[in-house]
């Protein structure tokens, strides 16, 4: 079995939503200005909110552009609005309102956004391009936690930070529990789960779990592969990327979303400008999400989009061939 750095203790799968709900509840207790903006959807710990903070919830219905305007107005008056929805709706439909009414003035609005491919929600709700489309908007912070522990800490950090910020609630199988409770999350800081010598997998969100599985596969082949958890897509921890590339000379990126303008492109840009390094991207290649079956034996979409640990292992072998060629 692979060995891991401090604050890493691989455990049973757990829902990231649990950690997010716990942090949101505490943030609302601590900050009387926090206010929930509902868009005809659930909200983390909604039953607790209904019982205890009914006057701090505004239901805007299926009218996301309007809800965004409401959030901007409340933020202008000193409140801390928190929206929750599928990313295609809260941030896709309201893209222009987010740009014009929130980001230009850098209003303190928080977004909890569900995105990813998992199960039978279909092409409309299984969006994969939203995260990448947000990356080019100035003033926005984007966080995609890897497990339940990091999700709780990232949500707490989001609520402490003053400025627009989104935490992605990935639609995916439950990730492993990866971090110990004393792990310290910092917005904009990547964390090396394992340093490695031959190659580094830079993964985000659920794909950190698949990267961990891939390390075990590759270790049996005698390969020493590192894993860098890149939970903040923006601001990107370029120092950690460059350090990993300098150490191992081969990078594989892994994300459960479009590989256009997402983590893979961000890492590739950083390395091209600073330390050109052989790289292979694992992600969804220029197509829409769709429905797939999940059984106890297999997750059809993980196979269909080639996102599993086996696929990451294939990419590591491929990047090692590139590294050997690059060295000549």
């Amino acid at each position: 079995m692979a060995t891991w750095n401090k604050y890493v203790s691989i455990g049973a799968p757990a829902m990231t939503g649990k950690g997010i709900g716990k942090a949101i509840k505490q943030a609302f207790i601590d900050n009387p200005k926090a206010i929930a903006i509902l868009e005809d959807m659930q909200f983390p710990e909604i039953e607790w909110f209904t019982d205890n903070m009914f006057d701090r919830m505004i239901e805007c219905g299926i009218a996301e552009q309007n809800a965004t305007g409401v959030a901007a107005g409340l933020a202008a008056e000193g409140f801390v609005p928190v929206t929750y929805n599928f990313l295609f709706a809260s941030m896709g439909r309201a893209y222009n309102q987010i740009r014009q009414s929130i980001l230009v003035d850098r209003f303190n609005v928080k977004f909890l956004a569900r995105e990813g491919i998992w199960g039978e929600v279909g092409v409309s709700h299984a969006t994969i391009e939203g995260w990448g489309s947000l990356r080019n908007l100035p003033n926005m912070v984007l966080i995609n936690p890897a497990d339940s522990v990091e999700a709780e800490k990232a949500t707490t950090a989001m609520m402490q930070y003053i400025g627009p910020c989104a935490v992605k609630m990935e639609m995916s199988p439950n990730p492993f529990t990866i971090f110990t409770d004393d792990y310290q999350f910092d917005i904009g800081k990547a964390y090396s789960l394992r340093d490695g010598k031959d190659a580094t997998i830079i993964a985000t969100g659920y794909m950190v779990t698949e990267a961990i599985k891939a390390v075990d596969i590759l270790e049996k082949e005698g390969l020493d592969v590192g894993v860098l958890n890149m939970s903040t897509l923006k601001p990107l921890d370029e120092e950690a990327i460059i350090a990993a590339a300098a150490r191992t000379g081969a990078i594989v990126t892994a994300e459960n979303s479009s590989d256009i303008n997402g983590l893979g492109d961000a890492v590739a840009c950083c390395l091209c400008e600073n330390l050109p390094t052989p790289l292979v991207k694992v992600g969804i290649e220029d197509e829409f999400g769709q429905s797939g079956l999940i059984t106890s034996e297999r997750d059809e979409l993980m196979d269909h989009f080639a996102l599993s640990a086996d696929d990451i292992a294939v990419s590591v072998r491929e990047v090692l061939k590139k590294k050997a060629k690059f060295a000549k």
Partner: protein
Amino acid sequence: MSETIKCGSCGMLLYFGEEIKRRLYMRAIPDESAVLADYGNKCPRCGAALSTDSVKIEIKRRATHES
């Protein structure tokens, strides 16, 4: 170009976004001290006093081959 401001004591990110003095008109945030004032001049995580002397301000410019 982007600018980040971090607590000099614990490293918590306090600001990330456009370079504050870069915009010609309609500056929502006039200067770095206004960012710190929004936090009550106190880091919400470690409680350290915040001033433009106690934070790390970094303005990131385009990377070059030498960087």
